[in-house]
């Protein structure tokens, strides 16, 4: 059983939960940038969470299943068409063999997810079917004419009445990170409520925030150190970067803040130019070195 790629769109990759245990070799985690939407797509077609799905970027993807298959499209809002007819976003669809499935360009959000019952069965690389776009580890991005193998469905999809909305309010809540003291209290106060716009260079590596300059309290240099998913780095430019799925495993800029897992899904869906309000979570003790 396989799926033919008719038009891969600008960037469509295969993603699962990512590769772990290799950060010390410099290998990013990768995995779906909007984990919640990928999870939902898998649930809708009866797959386990670790099944591999497609992740589109802005422009969509066009596919032709060579056998009948159940699929679901989630994530960024987009038009879905099966055999030229409008089909549902966020619901399982059973598509007959040979029917062209068009996942249109995103009208809200950036990344759509397409799950197939049985999951994409391409060969894993270093334990994962994810493509990491920083080092290009994993299966290459989709190409026209390529055939994607699909596995055997684990179970029948559960009946679904309505899928939860995947709209994301544009508020980014930061908690203090390991180098929070590189920004003084006045700058932290100024940051709370500040409005940034999403930079055009944002990608699977990081969400770039452009706006008021966040000044460092020190001009020291930091030795490279390990980076976590959701780390908010502050380069000398004073424009923060939120590290997403393909972030480098070490870095030399201070991590002043951290963004929670659920917020990362939103970070993966905000579009360049959109305005994001930063909130500083004051519920934590001011000193992270408890």
């Amino acid at each position, binding site marked *: 059983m396989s799926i033919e790629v008719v038009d891969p769109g600008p960037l469509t990759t295969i993603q699962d939960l990512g590769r772990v245990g290799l950060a*010390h070799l410099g290998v990013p985690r990768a995995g779906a940038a909007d984990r919640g939407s990928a999870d939902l797509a898998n649930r809708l077609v009866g797959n386990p969470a670790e099944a591999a799905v497609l992740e589109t970027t802005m422009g969509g993807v066009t596919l032709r299943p060579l056998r009948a298959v159940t699929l679901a499209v989630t994530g960024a809002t987009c038009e879905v068409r099966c055999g030229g007819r409008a089909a549902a976003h966020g619901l399982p669809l059973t598509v007959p063999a040979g029917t062209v499935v068009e996942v249109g360009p995103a009208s809200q959000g950036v990344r759509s997810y397409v799950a197939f019952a049985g999951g994409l069965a391409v060969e894993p690389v270093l334990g994962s079917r994810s493509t990491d776009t920083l080092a290009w580890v994993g299966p290459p991005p989709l190409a026209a004419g390529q055939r994607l193998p699909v596995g055997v469905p684990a179970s029948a999809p559960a009946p679904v009445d309505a899928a939860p909305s995947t709209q994301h309010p544009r508020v980014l809540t930061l908690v203090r990170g390991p180098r929070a003291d590189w920004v003084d209290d006045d700058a932290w106060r100024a940051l709370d409520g500040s409005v940034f716009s999403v930079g055009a260079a944002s990608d699977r590596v990081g969400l770039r925030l452009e706006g008021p300059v966040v000044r460092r309290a020190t001009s020291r240099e930091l030795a490279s150190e390990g980076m976590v998913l959701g780390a908010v780095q502050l380069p000398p430019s004073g424009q923060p970067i939120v590290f997403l799925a393909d972030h480098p495993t070490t870095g030399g800029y201070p991590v002043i803040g951290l963004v929670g897992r659920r917020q990362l899904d939103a970070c993966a869906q905000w579009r360049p130019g959109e305005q994001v309000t930063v909130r500083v979570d004051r519920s934590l003790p001011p000193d992270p*070195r408890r």
Partner: protein
Amino acid sequence: MRLVTVGDEAVLVEVGDPSTAAALAAWARAGGVAAVEVVPAATTVLLDGVDPELVRQELAAWSGGGAVPSGPLVTIPVSYDGPELGFVAEWWRCSEDEVVRRHTSVELVSVFCGFAPGFAYLAGLPTSWAVPRLESPRSRVPAGAVALADTWSAVYPRAAPGGWRLIGTTALELWDPHRDPPALLAPGTRVRFEAS
């Protein structure tokens, strides 16, 4: 040793120097700590995918010492023909031949990988040999470039932007995702450069 909490699931352990970081990482990986990722770096070890409170207890069992891991010895044949061989000779106030002699005389150790898959930070050059990075990084350093920055040596596993001083090239394959382990110079690996 100082512990810095990184959110709900990670702890950064500050230890002060690369060899202690390597020793702690080896101890943690050998079972001292239940972590998803153990990422040694220049003066820290990141323990990711942990319960921060549990890690505090686990780390209490670390003696603070422990041997720097002594991994396999890899010999890297190098053509010392890089564009900054002359710069390094001037910086070290010696001849280019002497740069090659010095760089091939020291046994280095891979302390950590980062920047790119398989890019290993090799420690062991004396501090008096530290060289500054380029003022402005090159947009493309070729794969196999042998480079110096501060007291670190490294080999670029593949073409990438970079600001290190290039002194030579090797044909050795540093990174192969289909090899186990994929990185030739995983942390703990001992390295000798050899003029070819």
